[in-house]
């Protein structure tokens, strides 16, 4: 009996120790397998007889087709007196032809399980149509109606003016939108990109004639590109797109590169009043090089270290250590002639001044001290790991290809992306930080002035703007002067 008991105890102890041993793996993260090979979809392209560029990424497993039409004219092509014209023209395209009403266009898109949207940037206007596989002809027919026979009817112009007016009004409730718009108005003061950052009151100035002139000038096949991704190949795409768009007439035109604006150099603090906002929203930024420049890759790594994720310096400092902020991130934005970086943070009002100091301190620190090897490798690992996630959906893939083509980026930003990130070292980051982060950024603060201005008294000079970007007055150490 005793023997049996000892055997039981021994067996239990062995089992316990086996379990404890098994659980050791829980104490530290597992060692990963080698980084898998990234095989990107092949992009094939052709130029049609009327000059239209066509690119195809074949994905035979997909039940959708994603189509992007890019017109290489954006808001920076809007005349100085008519900001918003490029965006308005793009939106008007889906609002009917002389023979097909806007409602019928919507019916056509819905019938193919379509999702249609329009985006206008400072450099281009993009039309995205994502639809069920099997409806390629119907989709291209609808697109050709939009591109070749837009109606620009007075009725639809009035309706769109109303919609855009209210949409912009609505957007102005978002402090981040207001802050970023104000930042860009200042950074692009004299530059054509300034045209993109308009207020809702300019929309009423647009006329049918303006729209028609803009369309006639820029909506040309040799100033456009089409991207198709899904269950099709280049041969089919060339045949079908030619069938529907070969009557689109080309026109001689140039697409000069706009000059790069000068970065801000002087300390500048700006305030925009947003009544009833509970938090202070900070948007701090300055200009950087365009996407196509070799500085892009070290800048991308730098941005990761600074504020790309919740584990970057800004978030860890402002939210985790100081508890000033709900969020604090940095991001790079790119146009054809230049780019800009923006740090955005939503902070508690009483900590707004301290938060600005901390952000400026972090910008200064990264420009004066080389990043550690740990931070460098962590940031590179993030960027390389995240790269395929940016093209995981078919619509993301076609959008990415359209940007590669619109910005003439080539393989460096596609198949060469990971290699280029691998080559970045702490010296290159230090170099670009000195070049782009040392010049003093523009600081924009958005919030309720009754709640915030008291907390911003220690700023030497604070310019106060209205939502239209008009300078109302300036405060010197909190006093109007």
């Amino acid at each position, binding site marked *: 009996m005793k023997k049996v008991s000892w055997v039981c105890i021994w067996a239990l102890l062995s089992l316990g120790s086996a*379990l404890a041993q*098994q*659980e050791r*793996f*829980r*104490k*530290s*993260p*597992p060692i*990963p*397998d*080698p*980084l*898998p*090979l*990234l*095989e990107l979809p092949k992009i094939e392209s052709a130029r049609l007889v009327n000059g239209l560029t066509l690119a195809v990424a074949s*994905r035979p*497993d997909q*039940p*959708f087709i994603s189509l992007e039409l890019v017109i290489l004219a954006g808001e920076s092509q809007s005349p100085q007196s008519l900001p918003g014209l490029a965006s308005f023209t793009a939106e008007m395209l889906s609002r009917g032809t002389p023979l097909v009403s806007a*409602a019928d266009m*919507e*019916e056509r*898109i*819905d*019938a*193919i*399980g*379509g*999702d249609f949207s329009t985006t206008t940037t400072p450099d281009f206007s993009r039309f995205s149509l994502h*639809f*069920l596989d099997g409806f390629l002809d119907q989709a291209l027919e609808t697109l050709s109606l939009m591109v070749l026979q837009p109606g620009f009817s007075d009725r639809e112009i009035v309706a769109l003016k109303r919609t855009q007016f209210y949409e912009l009004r609505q957007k102005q*409730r978002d402090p981040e939108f207001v802050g970023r718009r104000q930042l860009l108005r200042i950074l692009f003061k004299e530059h054509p990109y300034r045209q993109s950052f308009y207020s809702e009151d300019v929309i009423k100035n647009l006329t049918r004639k303006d729209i028609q002139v803009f369309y006639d000038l820029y909506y040309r096949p040799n100033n456009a590109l089409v991207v198709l991704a899904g269950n099709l190949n280049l041969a089919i795409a060339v045949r079908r797109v030619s069938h529907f768009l070969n009557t689109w007439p080309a026109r001689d035109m140039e697409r000069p590169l706009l000059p790069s604006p000068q970065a801000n150099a002087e300390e500048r603090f700006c305030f925009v009043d947003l009544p*009833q906002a*509970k938090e202070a929203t900070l948007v701090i930024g300055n200009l950087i090089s365009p996407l196509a420049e070799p500085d892009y890759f070290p800048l991308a790594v730098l941005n990761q270290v600074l504020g790309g*994720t*919740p*584990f970057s310096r800004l978030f860890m400092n402002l939210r*985790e250590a100081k508890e000033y902020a*709900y969020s604090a991130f940095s991001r790079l934005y790119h146009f054809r002639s230049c780019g800009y970086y923006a740090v955005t943070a939503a902070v508690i009002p009483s900590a707004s001044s301290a938060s600005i100091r901390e952000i400026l301190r972090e910008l200064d620190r990264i420009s004066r001290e080389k990043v550690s090897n740990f931070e460098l490798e*962590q940031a590179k*690992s*993030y*960027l*390389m*790991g*995240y*790269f*395929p*996630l940016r*093209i*995981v*959906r*078919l619509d993301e893939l076609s959008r990415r290809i359209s940007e590669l083509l619109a910005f003439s980026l080539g393989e460096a930003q596609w198949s060469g992306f990971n290699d280029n990130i691998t080559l970045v070292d702490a010296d290159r980051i230090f170099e670009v930080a000195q070049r782009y982060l040392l010049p003093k950024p523009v600081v924009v603060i958005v919030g309720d002035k009754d709640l915030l201005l008291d907390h911003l008294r220690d700023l030497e000079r604070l310019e106060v703007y209205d939502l239209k970007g008009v300078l109302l007055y300036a405060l010197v150490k909190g006093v109007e002067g």
Partner: protein
Amino acid sequence: MSKICAGVWLFLFFLTSLGAFADQEEPGFPFPWSRFTLKNGLEVVLSEDDTLPLVSVVLAYQAGSIYEQPGKTGLAFLLENMMFMGSLNIGPMQHIGYVNRVGGEPNASTTEDITYFYETVPSNQLALVLWLESDRMKTLEIDAAKAERAKQSLLDEITQRKTAEPYLDSLLAFDRLLYPDFAHGHSILGREEDILRLEVEDVRAFYATYYVPNNAALVVVGKIDLARTRELVEKYFETIALGRKLPLFLPPRPPEKKEVVQAFQDSLVPSPAFHLGYRIAPPYSRDYYVLAVLDYLLFKGKSARLYRKLVKKEGLALYVAGGIEKRKDVAVIKLFAMNNNETMVELCQKSIISEFSKLRTSDISSEELAKAKSLFKRDYINRLASPMERAMFLAEMVFSPVGLDGLPGQLPRYMRVNPYEVRMAINRYLVPESSVTLNVKLK
């Protein structure tokens, strides 16, 4: 006679072939998947996708807000937050850090019935995610300081949501009318007074009851090797102890069939509005499939009937949105409209009723039904567009009454809906005695 018989057989054969063709045309889930259950009850689903070197992992718990008790609202959402605050081997916020460092995206969401935790990472990092998820399932560290922090974060979220969504208060009041039982009718956000009173023991009890393997489903989709993935899942999850028997969740008694109309005064809304709802057939019941297609006919797409009629043609509403909403075993159709003034509210409601009357008496055209189905199919397939979305969809299906085995037949069921069924469903469900209206008036 024999010729007729042959004709009938041929016709039947033709119909069968059509059916087979339809099934072939509309596969409910056109990706391979396999499943197994661990000894502790954890349901595991694996699905391969070699397109990109990525893997998505979803760990779903039946731990949504419907499992909260009166006076303890907000617990489900609070716990979602606390799952990022550290477990035995992973420090606070380190979960996000580990995933971010390899280029992954971690996230979580709470619905009325399920709380999801999900990550997409490079496929060589699958073990990392399983390590992270298993640690917080097994040994989440809950203490009073963390609970206080999570409570504050939830209260901040409520304040932010109320500022950003002026109609939120009226929507929550409307939900309480539309779902008269406590479990389904209260908000995921919870009541502020309940959240303030929550104790750390409440959080521990909710975690111990619901965050257990026998109440969870783990889904892995992406570039994976099935045998190796199974091995890893077993390594990290098999030794987690089975939880206690889960409390019985009873579906609510059907509410009394009676029209409800009430007013809600609000000083913060920009214009008058109304919420209108109908209690309909439960999710995945026979009529539910018909009503899901009807949802698209009425509300979805730019050419949907109600949007076009109320906003575009008649100009009675500034904004209209609606659709089916399901909360575990109960489904409703909801509509929200914003109007210029109260006369417009009244006219808008009359116009909706007149539209329903029209649909009640005559069948919709096959073209209109085909359009609604195309849009439905688009959104259905869109839920399978990436490994992450596919994993979320599979996790939801594990807990649905049709289960994973019913998955292949789902899309074809929606696609088979015919105009007569739509008319019958409207007659059965879109009737005054199933409706709830809440008129939002400016104070």
